[in-house]
């Protein structure tokens, strides 16, 4: 599977702000790629560089194998990409019909059938002025303009920001259906981790302008394990030494340990599609726990994730917990672990 987006050591410095600090990113063709990070992590800057709206200070960015820095290559890239910005600001002085006609004129592969379909689905009236539309309806117009271009890559910056849950769900379903039908790639940034988990098959988490986690979502989840130990009394204060221990949290009788790839570098998983992820279960906890351990580990845990968890369980077994549960992690766990603040 080839990569539609590649960046290597990408830096972007705005006066005295280092927005990107050596960003490495690979987005496989055909994927729904969730691009995550805290506010100011560099997500929007990355998208701007990829579309030729901002020039990289150093490093390399390629979309469809072309550099967006060159003016003509930038035009070629943008002819194959549909972009929806965070603000969804369109031309206030146009009507819905006028902005559709305007946008259509730049894309020879414009899909009239999809235009009619999304006009009906999103209940958009061509004669309405953009300036009179709600934020939600503007988002729908922006999505229509993006989805009808016949683009090979959809680049969406916070596609559901400002939408109510019902509308956000509607938008997500439209995206998934579109990608399934049109075989395009989606690269989208979002703060809504549940949304990313819902539709993405690949994710990258960036922090302070660098990629800290990247890969197929299922494989990333398999790399991390949450081990929950319950004690008869208060959980002891324990310092876990096993490699791959990321976080230890005591709460009453419960001690929770998050394990994952050893620290010190970004967690990179080979870019393979979710269909290629082998299911290798069951959890190791059955084998290593005390006799009464209750194992509910993920069936898809891979060998690396298991070995880290195994080492932790081995180490903690000596404290004689009443039960040990190994449970799958959520994207939120991985995100918080990846971008946790220094304090």
């Amino acid at each position: 599977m080839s990569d539609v987006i590649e960046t290597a050591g990408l830096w972007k410095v705005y006066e005295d702000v280092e927005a990107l600090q050596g960003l490495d990113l690979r987005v496989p063709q055909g994927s729904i790629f969730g691009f995550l990070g805290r506010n100011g992590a560099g997500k929007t800057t990355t998208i701007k560089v990829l579309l030729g709206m901002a020039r990289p200070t150093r490093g390399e960015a390629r979309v469809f194998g072309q550099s967006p820095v060159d003016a003509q290559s930038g035009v070629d890239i943008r002819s194959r990409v549909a972009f929806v910005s965070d603000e969804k600001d369109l031309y206030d002085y146009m009507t819905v019909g006028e902005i559709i006609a305007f946008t259509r004129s730049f894309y020879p592969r414009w899909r009239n059938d999809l235009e009619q379909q999304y006009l009906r689905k999103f209940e958009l009236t061509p004669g309405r002025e953009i300036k009179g539309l709600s934020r939600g309806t503007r988002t729908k117009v922006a999505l229509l303009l993006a989805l009808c271009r016949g683009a090979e890559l959809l680049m969406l910056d916070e596609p559901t920001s400002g939408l109510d849950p019902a509308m956000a769900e509607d938008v997500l379903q439209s995206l998934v259906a579109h990608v399934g039908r049109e075989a395009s790639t989606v690269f989208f940034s979002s703060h809504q981790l549940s949304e990313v988990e819902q539709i993405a098959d690949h994710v990258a988490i960036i922090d302070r302008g660098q990629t800290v986690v990247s890969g197929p979502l299922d494989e990333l989840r398999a790399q991390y394990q949450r081990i929950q130990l319950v004690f008869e009394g208060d959980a002891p204060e324990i310092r876990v030494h096993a490699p791959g221990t990321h976080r230890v949290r005591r709460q009453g009788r419960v001690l929770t340990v998050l394990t994952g790839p050893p620290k010190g570098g970004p967690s990179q998983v080979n870019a393979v599609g979710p269909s290629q992820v082998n299911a290798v279960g069951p959890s190791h906890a059955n084998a290593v726990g005390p006799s009464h351990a209750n194992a509910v580990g993920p069936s898809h845990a891979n060998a690396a994730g298991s070995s880290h968890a195994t080492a932790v369980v081995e180490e903690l077994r000596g404290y004689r917990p009443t039960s040990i549960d190994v449970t799958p992690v959520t994207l939120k766990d991985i995100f918080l672990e990846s971008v946790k603040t220094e304090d």
Partner: protein
Amino acid sequence: MLWHKAWLETRWRFIIALLILTMMAGSSVYGFIATQRLLPVLNANTGSPTVEATGLGEAIREAIELQKTFRGFVWYQAIRQNLTQMGVFFAILLGCGGLLSESTKGSALFTLALPVTRKRLFGARAGTGLAQWFAIAMVAPLSIVLLAPSIGERFSIVDALAHGLCVFVGGAVFFSLASFLSTLFGDVWRPLLIAIGIACAIALASFAAPQLAIFSVMNGESYFRYGTLPWTGLLISAVLAMALLYSAAETLERRDF
């Protein structure tokens, strides 16, 4: 479609400028009748040796002399004052705005994501603005040609076109200046105020250094007095306007959004 977009963005400024400058030019035709009635009074009051001996007296005497004929009146009132002075303001107004000001409204990213180069985006905007300015510069003097017969006078169409050309080329410098400033400042007000400030400074400086008198080019004084277009001034103005537009396009090309 980029031209259509640029038209939609600037149409109200253009329409307002066209209406105001055309109305001012047209109304000056009828001002000629009233001025003719006043001239004998003015002659009586400025004919004293004490007034005539001063520079001010000389200027007043020349103004009165010029306005004795319809051609002189049109040049002095409609071209030299109204069309040149107000024209500079409207040329600047038409030049303000563009991609950078779109970024303050938020729609710049939508525009920049289109598969066109920034030079083409800028070219469409500048081309539309210059076309609008050309229309204004030509329609206003031509309205005098149309209205003059209504008071029994005549203004040559060749004179109207010659003055229109001078107004257009001179105004294009200020249009281009505003376009250039609009690639440096995101709002509309700073380019507008700075460009007006520069125009005022040039006007003041031209008293001391007449060779800086771009306004003399714009009002076509040499054509009016000697029947010769100010070719050198027109050429310098055109080159200056193109240089400013080129600088604006280059600045926009290098800019991060």
